[in-house]
């Protein structure tokens, strides 16, 4: 969703890092462990990820089951209180974290694969292929993703997290394709790429062995942004009521909190945790990304 926010490489489009030996790895590590943004962002994301992975094992009932008294504020037994049906909000939150990371990885993954493929091919091949792919990218870029997704998923009677991920991936790749294309374009005129071409290597091998490794940091950052973006889009879809059927997610929690007017009943413990969860995950991902940018790009280092 955030094509602008911290998109990598507005500043370093021209000069991708040159390949060097292991010394570079240790140098990156040296700056990585001294970068507070990177450490804080990574710490929060990992903590939430662990909560989402491990947490559900400590909950012995279904998150949508009516287990407790109704409309309880947070207390010792139900850490985040209960809904007006008596569902345990902490249980929903923990399961919701898990599915939020899943949809991020899945939707972001699909978008990443499409985006980088289109970007590499367009940037490396150039000419008419570039023209066609560029046009395709622009078309998908202009279409408002959420609205397309609403229309597409409205006809499905049963929706799963898998289908949601594929659909999100199919609509959110264009800016990544554009970014990768411009990088690949500048890299593909380098001498070592020409050399590889002269030696008769296949296009695909040149892309994967000569071009991609030289922009690996860039690719990692693009993936992180796509990851955060698909979490936000998925939350929006869930909120409209097009989330996974019978599933649990942070977006669906917001939807039911809205639908059963928690706002007017003053049940703040119902709608604050899911939104806070999403904001924390995506926000830490963005800050982590800025940290990574500073680690990989010597120009931005402040040490």
């Amino acid at each position: 969703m955030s094509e602008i926010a911290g998109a990598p490489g507005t500043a370093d489009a021209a000069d991708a890092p040159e390949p060097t030996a292991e010394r570079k790895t240790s140098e990156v590590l040296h700056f990585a462990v001294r970068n507070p943004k990177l450490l804080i962002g990574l710490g929060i994301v990992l903590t939430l990820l662990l909560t989402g992975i491990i947490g559900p094992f400590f909950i012995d009932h279904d998150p949508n089951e009516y287990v407790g008294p109704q409309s309880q504020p947070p207390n010792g037994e139900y850490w985040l209180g209960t809904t007006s049906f008596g569902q345990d909000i902490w249980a929903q939150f923990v399961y919701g974290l898990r599915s939020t990371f899943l949809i991020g990885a899945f939707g972001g993954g699909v978008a990443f694969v499409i985006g980088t493929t289109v970007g590499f091919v367009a940037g490396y091949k150039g000419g008419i292929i570039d023209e066609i792919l560029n046009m395709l990218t622009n078309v998908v870029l202009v279409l408002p993703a959420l609205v397309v997704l609403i229309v597409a998923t409205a006809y499905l009677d049963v929706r799963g997290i898998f289908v949601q991920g594929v659909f999100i991936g199919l609509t959110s790749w264009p800016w990544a394709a554009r970014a990768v294309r411009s990088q690949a374009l500048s890299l593909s005129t380098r001498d070592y790429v020409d050399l590889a071409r002269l030696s008769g290597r296949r296009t695909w091998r040149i892309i994967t062995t000569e071009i991609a490794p030289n922009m690996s940091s860039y690719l990692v950052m693009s993936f992180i942004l796509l990851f955060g973006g698909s979490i936000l889009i998925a939350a929006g879809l869930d909120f409209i009521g097009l989330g996974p059927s019978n599933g649990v997610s942070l977006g669906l929690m917001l939807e039911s909190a809205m639908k059963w007017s928690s706002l007017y009943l003053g049940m703040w413990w119902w709608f604050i945790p899911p939104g806070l969860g999403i904001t924390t995950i995506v926000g830490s991902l963005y800050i982590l990304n800025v940290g990574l940018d500073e680690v990989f790009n010597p120009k931005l280092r402040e040490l």
Partner: protein
Amino acid sequence: MWRYIGRKLFVYLLTFVIAVTINWMIPRFMPGDPVRSMLSRASVGNPEALQRMNDYYTGVFGFDTPLHEQYLAFWGGLLRGDLGVSVMLYPQPVLDIILRSVPYTLALLLPAIILSWIVGNRIGAFAARKKLLDNTVLPVGYVLTAMPYMWLALLLAWSLGIVAGVLPTSGGYSPTLRPEFSWLFISSLITHWILPFLSMFIVALGGWAIGMRNMIIYELEADYSNYLQALGAPSRLIRRYAFRNAMLPQITGLAVQLGTVLSGALLTEIVFNYPGLGTLILQALNNRDFFVLQGTFLFVVVGVLIANFIIDIVYVLVDPRTRVQMTGGAA
């Protein structure tokens, strides 16, 4: 310049054709019978009326004709401005229903986009390369962009609307009033508009501030900035030059972000039950009114395309380099 605008127009036209084709394809190629699933929720008690609706919609889809004829008929209807008839508000035409909601969405969207862009750019430009400010603006900006629109809307509705009780949280105007041109009605419109506007404005603000900050830092490193500095120009002047250069990517960014802000508007409207397109989409979904849904989709796409085109023209006006190409300068 004309080549540039011509290319853009071609892409937009292509996008429109693709959007219409998607719209035509989805009900036909998704699993299930669209007419039956659509009418399953229609609240029609009388079986005769239901049969009539069933016949009508089957006729609209034209399932008995070959596919290419269905496609052409679809375009024909579209070009006559016929988007079909609503199921939930049968027999009102979809176009009328949409046109009733559009002013509310525009009233939210346009001020929120433009103001957040202007204010965000100012904040970002001001904070760049100032240690203390930068360290607050940057994290706050990232947290704001990471916020789901509906969540901030819920927070504002709860804190300002319910707890503090200063602003209404539901509807486009007070339910006791009728739309008329009176001071009472207009003030009710405005008080109902503030909260949804504010929540959209705040979420959108963060992204612009961050983008501008990054661009300014980049510009301040450029040769012309260093040269000006070496000449002893005041830093205010250098920043002014940097700002003008940093504006260009932000204008492009405006076009790219349009879809995101628009989805934000739809979600915010749902929270506040604001009578715009977002609430309409929700109602259409709940009633499985696919005609309203698809009509809204087309309408939104056309709106986004027009807005993109306007941004392109503004870009040409602002950036002299695109104009040079018109007079035969180097491309």
